[in-house]
């Protein structure tokens, strides 16, 4: 597998720090670069457990005003601490020794978007969502990620399944509460087979019935606080369910079986492959590239490591399938940090900056997440914002290299004549850095 240092660093990674291209060039087969990244990190269950315990404690306060005040204080504390923690977390991610895995993590986190926008109660659970449900599985099985995601309290609350009650269940009959289709619809439309793949409203309702009872143990005194997921059997809708012509029965295991069945469907392989190809290969990836990635997924039974490796195979074997990709705001910021160092990030400004760019983490406007094509991010206003941000970043940069040497170090032979000319012809070193940060080389990967 031979891919160029520039493609490895920029297309599949988070940009380059000075010296990174030389390090990659010393590994000509690219094997080490890839292999050293393949290690599965462990989830940190403590964050989630703390949030859950705090929520449970607050939720059990009998007096309503006191309860609401406690919850408000809890949200405020989490918001504030997430803002400071985010600076270091983002800098650490941007400087990661495993940038390809970081990119895959960001990709899957966006595929399974949870958002606190307009729904602040999602936030306490969302802060650890990526660590709990995404990161452990980015090089594992998609089915495992799917189940971890759909049983995570952030997703159950975000898409309302925590409130869904089977109409014929014990709780449904007693309390006249009903089914909520939201999560089931998005599982089919956004998470697995994809919209337009042939499922019907009937399938949505049947899946919604099948996952009734998948909820969060808040305000339930008898439940086990150490587990963030609760299967409430008294809400589960009894009777047979048929989803995409497969029959399912009652209980938690049947719901998990349905997710495993959905995960290995060819429509899912195609839907995920197309999205991954759009992220790494081209805005409009050729059908052959999608088929190659989907093939690796299907033949491995939904192994995401094999699927990710298919991307590298394409870069090495079929570079003609690839087209330039425009860096999204978060990637542009990460590449800036990787090039100039984390000092350019002002304290507590990472999150507001991403908000200004329209790509704040955990704040996407819909469960579809942030879009992934050039036209979504290269609007006139977005280009102006990037320039404005780069002016500030260049002002804060403290680097020992000259801007020209830095440009050479980051892009090597790929540095375009336009970018080189602009950096060399700037009126000051600071302006040269600004121009480098918005140069076509920096904007496109």
């Amino acid at each position: 597998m031979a891919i160029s240092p520039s493609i490895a660093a920029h297309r599949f990674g988070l940009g380059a720090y000075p010296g990174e291209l030389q390090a990659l060039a010393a590994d000509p087969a690219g094997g080490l670069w890839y292999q050293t990244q393949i290690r599965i990190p462990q989830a940190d269950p403590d964050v989630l457990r703390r949030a859950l315990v705090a929520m449970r404690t607050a939720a059990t306060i009998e007096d309503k005003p006191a309860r609401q005040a406690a919850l408000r204080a809890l949200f405020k504390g989490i918001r504030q601490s997430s803002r400071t923690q985010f600076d270091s977390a983002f800098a650490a991610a941007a400087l990661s020794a495993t940038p390809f895995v970081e990119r895959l993590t960001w990709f899957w986190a966006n595929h399974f978007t949870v958002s606190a926008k307009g729904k602040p109660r999602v936030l306490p659970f969302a802060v650890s969502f990526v660590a709990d449900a995404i990161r452990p599985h980015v090089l594992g099985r998609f089915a495992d990620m799917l189940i971890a995601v759909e049983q995570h309290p952030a997703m159950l609350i975000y898409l309302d399944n925590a409130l869904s009650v089977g109409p014929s269940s014990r709780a449904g009959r007693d309390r006249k509460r009903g089914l909520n289709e939201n999560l089931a619809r998005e599982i089919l439309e956004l998470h697995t087979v994809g919209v337009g793949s042939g499922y019907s409203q009937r399938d949505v309702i049947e899946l919604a019935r099948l996952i009734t009872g998948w909820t969060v143990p808040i305000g339930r005194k008898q439940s086990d606080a150490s587990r963030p997921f609760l299967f409430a059997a008294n809400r589960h809708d009894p009777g047979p369910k048929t989803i995409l012509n497969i029959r399912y029965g009652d209980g938690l295991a049947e719901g998990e079986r349905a997710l495993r069945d959905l995960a290995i469907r060819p429509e899912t392989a195609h839907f995920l492959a197309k999205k991954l190809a759009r992220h790494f290969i081209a805005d409009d990836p050729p059908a052959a590239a999608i088929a190659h990635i989907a093939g690796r997924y299907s033949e491995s039974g939904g192994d995401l490591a094999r699927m990710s490796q298919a991307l590298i195979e394409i870069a090495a074997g079929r570079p003609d399938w690839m087209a330039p990709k425009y860096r999204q705001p978060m990637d542009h910021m990460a590449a800036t940090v990787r090039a100039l160092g984390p000092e350019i990030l002002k304290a507590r400004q990472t999150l507001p900056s991403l908000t200004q760019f329209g790509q704040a983490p955990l704040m996407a406007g819909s469960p579809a997440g942030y879009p992934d094509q050039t036209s979504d991010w290269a609007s006139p206003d977005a280009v102006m914002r990037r320039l404005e941000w780069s002016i500030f970043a260049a002002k804060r940069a403290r680097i020992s290299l000259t801007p020209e040497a830095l440009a050479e170090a980051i892009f090597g032979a790929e540095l375009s004549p336009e970018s080189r000319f602009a950096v060399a012809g700037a009126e000051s070193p600071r302006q040269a850095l600004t121009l480098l940060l918005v140069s076509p080389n920096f904007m496109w990967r």
Partner: protein
Amino acid sequence: MLSRRSFLATAAAAGAAIPGVTLARAPGERRFIFILLRGAMDGLAAVPPIGDPDYARVRGRLAFTPDMGALPLHNGFALHPAMTEAHALYRSGELLVAHAIAPPHRTRSHFDAQNILENGATRAFARHDGWLNRALSAVGGNRADLGLAIAESEPLTMRGPAKVAGWAPRRVVLIPETLSERVSVMYSADPVLAPAFAEGLNAHALASANAGSDGRMGGARGGRALVLAENAGLAAEFLARPDGPRIAMLEGGQWDTHAGQGVASGRMARLLGDLSAAFERIKTGLGPAWRQTVVVAATEFGRTARPNGALGTDHGYGSAAFIAGGAVNGGKIVTDWPGMSQQALFEGRDLMATMDMRALLKGVLGDHLRVPRQALDTGVFPESAAVRPIFDIIRH
């Protein structure tokens, strides 16, 4: 920014490129604002049909009761009590309500339905440009600052061949000319960045001219996401200028009320209050130009007629739309009301849509912006000749 002279030159050139389009159809002083309410507004909460015999039973715990102060319209309909400004406009004949309306789709997918509402076609992802951009091409040619999108990223409705300025309100940062010139040169060979930067600089100049001495836009707070009414006020500031844009698009989110949407108060009340204030901010901001203005606020689909288990509503079909402005023949509700009996509901669960969103938009674009019928039937809304525009929305 283009001078009057260069505007005439580019408009004439564009007129030559589009058969049958002449300068006489340029919008002149007429203004149009499209507000896209993303997430599916519950039309039965915004415009409750309190006189419908099945309403109270079907709507259950989300039904307005007489003590909740819903604001009366004609024919047994009412406005949500949070929409006081909109109600005042209705009473003065400057607001028209369309009900049981939807874009041409029945998928209940936000993303498909918004895509259809934005691309103007009958299939999702059938086109990469939007109906409002194509309407812009038909009336204004390539005048770069005729259209304006106030949004975080350029909405599909406004994407296409006609140039559109994009703007999301924030602090205006000074960009030295020595820098912007170098960026322009550096981008000259880049087919994406060159035009985007040129238009961005143009909008930046417009905003710098509008900004106060502290570099902030009127009504905006730097760094904070603004609510719809504040963005509406900003759009009005741009549109009020004699040489400013004439056609603008705004978007508002958070309408996907699956849980705890409230009745007279709560989440829907906040959203609808914001929308109502947006109409008022546009009227105030435009001043005398309001008389030549039409604002359409629409959503991708409605929601289930019955409440769900969480006292919210799930994805449905027919919803309501609002048409406001001094040029509107308002003070009435336009609907072919389908009713709310079990048989009348779409698939037994959603308000039926009896009006195609394109009929409403074609009526407004034709009578207000004078987009020719031929262009409406083929280019703006492809293959829509069978969808007849609704007449009588605009004052004559």
